[in-house]
C-alpha cells in the first residue's frame, strides 16, 4: 500500500479527520489529503514545529510517540513511528482513541510499502547435462 492509498483509506474510514499529511523526520511530504503541494508542506512544517517544541519539554530520555493538541477550533494530532510521521486535524471534541488508532494504521500501511522485500527473481533452470552413455 502506498502513501496515497493509505491516506485515501484513512479519510474513508474516519469521518472525523479533516486533513492529514504523511511526512518524514526531514520534513519531506510523502502524501497529503490537501490539494496543493505548498499547503501540504506548510501543514507538515507546522506539525514538525509543534512536535519539536513539545519534545523540548520532556524531562526523561523517553521519545515522543504521539501528541494531541485540543483547542476550541479543533484538534491537531501527530503520530511518530521511527522516521515516519503523520499529522492530522479534526473538528472540536473528536474521539481521541479512535483517531490515534486510525492514524497509526495509516502510518503502518504507508510504511509497509517500503518494508516489503522485493520478490526474489526465479533462478534460471539449468539444462540437464546428458549422463555418460546416454544418447
Amino acid at each position, binding site marked *: 500500500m502506498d502513501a496515497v492509498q493509505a491516506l485515501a483509506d484513512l479519510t474513508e474510514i474516519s469521518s472525523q479527520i479533516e486533513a492529514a499529511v504523511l511526512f518524514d523526520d526531514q520534513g519531506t511530504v510523502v502524501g497529503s489529503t490537501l490539494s496543493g503541494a505548498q499547503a501540504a508542506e506548510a*501543514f507538515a512544517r507546522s506539525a514538525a514545529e509543534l512536535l519539536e517544541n513539545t519534545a523540548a519539554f520532556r524531562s526523561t530520555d523517553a521519545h515522543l510517540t504521539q501528541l494531541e493538541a485540543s*483547542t476550541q477550533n479543533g484538534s491537531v494530532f501527530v503520530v511518530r513511528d521511527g522516521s515516519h510521521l503523520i499529522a492530522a486535524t479534526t473538528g472540536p471534541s473528536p474521539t481521541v482513541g479512535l483517531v490515534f488508532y486510525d492514524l497509526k494504521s495509516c502510518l503502518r500501511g504507508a510504511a509497509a510499502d517500503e518494508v516489503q522485500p522485493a520478490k526474489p527473481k526465479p533462478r534460471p533452470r539449468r539444462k540437464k547435462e546428458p549422463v555418460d552413455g546416454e544418447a
Partner: protein
Amino acid sequence: MAKRKFLGLLGFGTGVFAGSVLYRRSTGRRRDRVDVYFDDGSMMSFVEGSPEAEKLLPVAQDVLSAARR
C-alpha cells in the same frame, strides 16, 4: 410531618445541585490543552494557562490554519 418536610427539602436540594452540575458541564468551556505521549508509556498534559501550553497552543493554531487554508 417534620420528617416528610425534611425529605422534601432534601430532594429539592439534591435536584438543584444535580441540575447545576449538568448545566455547568453542558455550557462550560473546555480548556485548551496539549497531551503528549512517550514511548515509555508516560504521558504529560499541558493545560491552557501553563507556560508550556502558552508556547505550544499558538503552534497548534498555526497547524489548524495551515490545514484549513
